[in-house]
Structures are given as C-alpha cells and as structure tokens.
C-alpha cells in the first residue's frame, strides 16, 4: 500500500534561527508588528510503500534520524496518510 509521509523538520527551540530572525524582521518592516517570532523549517513529502500506516511512519522516522534531520540541531514530525 502506498502512503504519503509529510515530514516537517525544524530547528530546535534552543538553536538560533538566523533565517527565521531575518524573516521576522522583514515582517516587522512590512508592518506586521504583532509577529513575535518566526522559525524557518523544511517540508519533505515522501511517497512510500509499506504494509500499513504504522510501518510507513516507522520507516519515515528512521529516515529522519538517518538523513532528513540532524538530531543535534533539529526536531522532526511525521504525518502519514494513505496516498
């Protein structure tokens, strides 16, 4: 069965996000003064074959640990849906 795994990789809250800070500053300049913070992450969408959703999720999480995220600086979330 084919599943879609939606992976979101984001910098850990303790890690300075220079890109996010620049985005926040840009939003402030545009007048969005209410923006308190901006964090920039990555979205990775995988189509993958697995026996069931649980296995698809396990596979995607292993991929995150192996390659898609760097656990020293990043967190990740995985959402699996039938493709």
């Amino acid at each position: 069965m084919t599943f879609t795994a939606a992976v979101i990789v984001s910098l850990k809250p303790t890690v300075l996000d220079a890109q996010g800070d620049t985005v926040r500053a840009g939003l402030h300049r545009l007048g969005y003064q209410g923006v308190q913070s901006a964090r920039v992450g990555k979205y990775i969408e995988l189509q993958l074959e697995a026996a069931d959703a649980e296995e698809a999720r396990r596979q995607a999480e292993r991929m995150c640990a192996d390659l898609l995220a760097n656990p020293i600086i990043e967190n990740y979330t995985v959402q699996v849906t039938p493709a």
Partner: protein
Amino acid sequence: MSVLVEKMPSFGVVIFPGSNCDHDCYHVAAHVLGAPTRYVWHEETDLAGLDCVILPGGFTYGDYLRTGAIARFSPVMGAVQRFAAAGGLVIGICNGFQILLEAGLLPGAMLRNVGQRFICRHVYLRTEQTQTPFTRTLSPGQVVRIPIAHGEGNYYADAQTLRELEEYGQVVFRYCQPDGRLTPGANPNGSVSNIAGICNRERNVLGMMPHPERCSEPLLGSVDGRFIFDSMFAAARQSGGN
C-alpha cells in the same frame, strides 16, 4: 635492530560531486609541499598507501538538505572512517569540516551564519592547541591570518559537548582580533565560543572553516596556511606512514 626509513608522506584529496577547492588542496600538497599526492574520487573505497586525507571545500551535492548531509553517504566516507580509526590524518576544510560533522567524525553541527550572509574575507585565528599533528609547527597562542568563504560556518555544540571539547583540548582554532584577543566582533559567523576549528579526541581528525590552502604561498598574500600542511607533513613523516 631497527632501521629508520624516511618515508615521504602521501596525500589524498577527495573529490565529491560539488567539491571546488580540490585543485587548490592538490596544488598545495603536490607542488608547495612536494608530497606524492593523488585525487580520490568519492566512489573509491580504498585509501591504501595514503598518510593524509583532505576533504576539500565546496558545495557537495548542492548543499541540499544540509551542508555535508548527502556527501557523508558517499562510498569513500566508509573508507575515511576506517582510515581515521586506524590513525590516519584527516583534515576537513570548510565543506569538508561540515561533512566530518555530519559523518559524526567530529562533534557538533553547523548553522547558517548569524548575519545570514556568505562571508568571504581574511580572518585571524588564535592557535589554541599545538599538540596536534595539524598545528605542531605553530606556537601556543600564535595568531594566523587565513581566509574564510562560507554561508554556514556558525559552529554549534550543546553545552555538554562544548564542555567536553574544552576539557579534552579539542578546540584548535578560535576567531580572534589581530592581536589575539577573543571578542564577539572577531567572530564572523556566530560560532559558539569563537570556534573556527576542532579536532577529535584522538587528535588525528581536524575540521576547520578557514581555508589554509588559499594562503600557502607568498603570491596569495599570506603563507600562514603552510603551518597546517607543514605540520601534517612532519607528523606523517615521523609516524612512518599509516
């Protein structure tokens, strides 16, 4: 009876798809040092006969995902792991440093420069450790002038890792003022504790963001990079090869 045989240390320069400082590194090893030097394509898995391996700068695999993240799965990296474990000298320069971090050969990770800019200029580095094969021709505290060229050189390590780096004397270079003072202003990219280069505990793997291969000849305006290559050459020669 033992016979001391003087052996000329040999250098290997790894080429990944997207390496772009490979020729500079080759030039310094082969023509400035005069050492036997060969390129190592990233699909090679045999480093036999080499004493020193250089992971050069560049933008391997387009820096996709994270700098060095894909290069660490190149076939050659398994060989580099074994080479390092056997005591061979490995230096990763700029993107090479980023690859060593992703491969877990050195601790920590690299973030985007605090100012969000790609920075290409000369910086000053204070030599924090001379008891390494990469810095033995430098004096403690010696300041060297070496160029940087990177967008993601903001070295990060968590508090525990940082404590261990300091405890085991693994911080080899820090960004400093020309007179050696460590100030926030001397730190071009936001690296924690002004760190510009670190080594592993065994001291045979060094990663540094600045480019010593770009300043190893008078023609290039500084010869301070020579200290590092000369150190490697001397250390490899003394150890009699790998």
